[in-house]
């Protein structure tokens, strides 16, 4: 009887532990392997909007950023360099989240960003993509399926690897550094 109870309690503790682990924030997104949620957003600098649907047929690097995010500064030049290198084959899209238009435009000028950059005005795109913070980047295949997600700032090596996966159309491993993601909490702009 005593042995049974000990086993029962141990099983319970293990089950609770497994359950709590399963509820931890994970690098892997449930959206990987699923169609990318559609969106349309106003672009900075030009008086037009961009819809994800118009990019169908081209792999997309979809980056969420904000001017108040420190890690996004490290990543800004990496993304621009990646766009300059791979722009013929891959579309680069940047979405500013919970940002002020003036600050975002100043950030764009300061880091010389030239790819598609727009604003998630009402935060709906961030929710659709299950965002925790910025920067986060989704890699979307030419058929519109999300192939991987990277959280935290991208390095040149990360970006080259992800772009190669995009071009090959293969699902990538979840990656990144959650400690360098600035949560979309009250400490925003």
């Amino acid at each position: 009887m005593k042995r049974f109870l000990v086993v029962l309690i141990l099983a319970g503790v293990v089950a609770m532990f497994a359950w709590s682990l399963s509820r931890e924030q994970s690098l892997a997104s449930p959206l990987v392997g699923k169609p990318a949620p559609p969106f349309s957003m106003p672009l900075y600098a030009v008086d037009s909007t961009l819809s994800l649907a118009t990019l169908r047929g081209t792999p997309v690097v979809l980056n969420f950023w904000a001017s108040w995010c420190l890690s996004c500064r490290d990543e800004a030049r990496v993304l621009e360099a990646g766009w300059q290198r791979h722009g013929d084959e891959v579309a680069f899209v940047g979405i500013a989240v919970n940002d002020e238009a003036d600050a975002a435009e100043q950030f764009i000028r300061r880091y010389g960003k030239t790819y598609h950059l727009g604003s998630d005005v009402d935060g709906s795109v961030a929710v659709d993509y299950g965002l925790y913070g910025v920067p986060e980047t989704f890699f979307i295949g030419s058929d519109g399926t999300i192939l991987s997600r990277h959280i935290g700032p991208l390095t040149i090596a990360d970006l080259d690897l992800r772009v190669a996966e995009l071009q090959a159309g293969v699902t990538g491993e979840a990656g990144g550094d959650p400690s360098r993601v600035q949560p979309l909490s009250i400490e925003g702009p």
Partner: protein
Amino acid sequence: MRRGRIAAATVLLSAICLGSAAGQDEALPPPVELTPAQEELAEEIESTLKCPVCRSQSVRTSRSFMATDMSLRVRQMVADGKSKAEIQDYFVARYGDYILLSPRKEGFGWTVWLLPFALVLGGAVTIVTIARRWKGRPPAATPPPLSATSTWMQKLERELEETE
């Protein structure tokens, strides 16, 4: 109701902040107007969703950007006639089960719901078992009464007589 006012204030604040951006004013969503019943449903759903950037706070109680954006989406979906389960499914599909404050009563989630009852039951069975064992145990052996003929009594009586 409080969340409704917060959402409306947030939309208004966003409008002020983003008002200077040319061409963006049109993109601002109108505040979501809900009937009292819809408002109640929205608040109930918000209470079941974890704010992903907070520590153990629901979307209803958090004031973070993320929670505000999620609250707006909940309200839009409620206004569109979506059910509680549909709205929860929407968030689980994006964040995983982690986003629910309480596990669902299905699959592995049942373990978490039933385990506390199993442990209480196990504890009760243990207590009853131990109590029964104690009750069934024979009483401790009592020492035999000292007989008047024992050596010790004889010695005592002799010493008392000598004292007298």
